[in-house]
């Protein structure tokens, strides 16, 4: 995503034109800076407000804290009833397992669909294509019914099932497109050397496909960590709540204590925020690639 570079077109400008360009420059920069600031301001505001106690915050919602205190953080982290730490562990576990299966299955299915001719190849392809078209929220009620009747609801692994299923279509397509673009000679050479299908798949193709698998992992990390609606209908036990679900419960309990809510939100957002700002270039690239190709 290199910035578009333009060679400067030198032209003779009158002072009037110079002022006009200057004003335009200021105006354009101002608008974009305001927009960028609006994107980051909530984070900054929540951060310094979370260092205030409720009384101070209610008296002055926008000012910087005069006596910053970590009491909100200490209170939310030491009370196990709030499930802050627990929900983060649940979210990490769900996300990691989901990522593992999405990448693994996406890789296998994508590869087979791209390379192996068999009856039903195209049918399978269309089956996965449909997965991208089906509006997820039309499945909230039926998935609740199915999971409850089969006894799969409200377990530690419950959410991994829909997350993997709904992450698969995009993974399959990205892998399929990627594999089709690499020359088949690689596998032919491996075959001549007597490599089995499984070995070729995992020790030869897998490393080659790494960039696309990283892209898939990036997209799915965010969507699994942030997913809310399946968690809402499938999880009843508060000990199994993921972060977004725990946050809605937390907010219900402390509707009036904003600094406390903010400290909880920042704590649970921290992993994803740190991840984003450390790897923002790769993350943005991956998300864009996924969106456009998907």
């Amino acid at each position: 995503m290199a910035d578009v570079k333009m060679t400067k077109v030198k032209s003779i400008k009158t002072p009037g034109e110079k002022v006009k360009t200057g004003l335009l420059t200021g105006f354009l920069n101002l608008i974009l800076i305001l927009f960028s600031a609006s994107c980051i301001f909530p984070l900054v505001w929540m951060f310094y407000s979370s260092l205030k106690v409720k009384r101070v915050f209610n008296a002055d919602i926008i000012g910087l804290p005069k006596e910053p205190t970590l009491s909100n953080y200490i209170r939310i982290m030491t009370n196990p009833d709030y499930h802050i730490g627990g929900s983060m562990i649940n979210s990490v576990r769900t996300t990691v397992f989901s990522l593992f299966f999405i990448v693994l299955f996406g890789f296998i299915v994508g590869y087979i669909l791209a390379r192996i001719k068999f009856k039903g190849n195209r049918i399978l392809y269309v089956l996965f294509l449909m997965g991208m078209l089906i509006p997820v929220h039309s499945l909230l009620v039926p998935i609740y019914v199915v999971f409850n009747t089969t006894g799969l609801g409200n377990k530690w692994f419950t959410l991994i099932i829909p997350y993997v299923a709904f992450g698969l279509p995009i993974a399959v397509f990205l892998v399929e497109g990627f594999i089709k673009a690499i020359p088949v000679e690689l596998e032919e050479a491996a075959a001549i050397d007597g490599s089995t299908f499984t070995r070729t798949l995992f020790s030869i193709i897998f490393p080659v496909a790494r960039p696309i698998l990283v892209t898939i992992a990036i997209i799915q990390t965010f969507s699994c960590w942030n997913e809310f609606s399946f968690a809402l209908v499938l999880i009843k036990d508060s000990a199994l709540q993921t972060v977004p679900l725990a946050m809605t419960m937390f907010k219900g309990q402390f509707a009036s204590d904003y600094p406390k809510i903010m400290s909880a939100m920042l704590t649970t957002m921290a992993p994803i925020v740190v991840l984003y700002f450390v790897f923002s270039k790769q993350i943005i690239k991956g998300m864009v690639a996924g969106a456009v190709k998907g």
Partner: protein
Amino acid sequence: MIGTRPAFVKILYSLEEAAYYMLRSIKPKGRTILLYLCVPVVWYVFSVFIPLITAMFYSLFEWKGGPQKSFIGIENYISLIQDFSFWEAFSHNIYLVFLCIIGQIGVAFVFVLMINSRLVKLKGIHRTFGFFPSTVSAVSIGFIWMMIYDYKRGILNWILEITGHADQTKVWLNEPGLVMFLVSIPLVWQFIGYYMVILLSAISSVDSEIFEVAELDGASAFQRAIYIVLPLIKNTLLVCVTLCVAGNMKAFDHIYTMTEGGPGTSSMVMAMYGYKVSFAQMNMGYGSAISVGIFVLSLIVIGGMQKFLNALMKDKGVE
């Protein structure tokens, strides 16, 4: 010539051998393939298609979630067609779609033009910061904006007070006429940067000489935007519009967090309505019919939008 013949034959022979191995490995046994495919496919079908079929099945029953179900045929669908609340919710989805196409893609396009002009500094910062909200969960975004709209401690009322408009402060999310617009703002704002980055990457893949030549030829910034940039990134724009439509047909998380569809049904969207009927009123049979309704309507809107856009692009001749 004669001396080279055996070597030539040898090569041919080894090629044949290679082809044999190749076929065996590239076309592995059907059983291997089946083994590899069965777990993912069963997993996928179980979580996507089984629920879909289940929804169609239960939508034909009167079922309040308990053990008792009674078959009532298409009665649920007849009530659905006459259900004012459902169609009101649908109209809110459509409202969101249009607001987001203008507010997200339109604004993102303007920002892209601005960033792309030589006058703007800090491009990297705009990209990183602008993209950030789209990586945050909808629940967090909903909270942040609830705090902004809050009556006593909200930033919006605080701004109104310090600018001397204290009489206009409101309990914002309790205004039936305003609430749909207010809950749309976070949605729009969250993804402006997302579309901006997608469009930026589309433009950066275009040869920049095109823009320079146009500028030298005296095309104004507006002309360049409409006649050069727009056709060049047409396909990416189409992708963005499709993403935007699909994303807003399933709007749920933000609205659940901020208003749960209230006050009354003023900010109800389809997914929220389906959730309320199924889980608050425990009307699972009718809820299933609503799910099927959401499914069908979303496909119609997304498909229709794509047809419409393709036709529009053809008319304009910017193939």
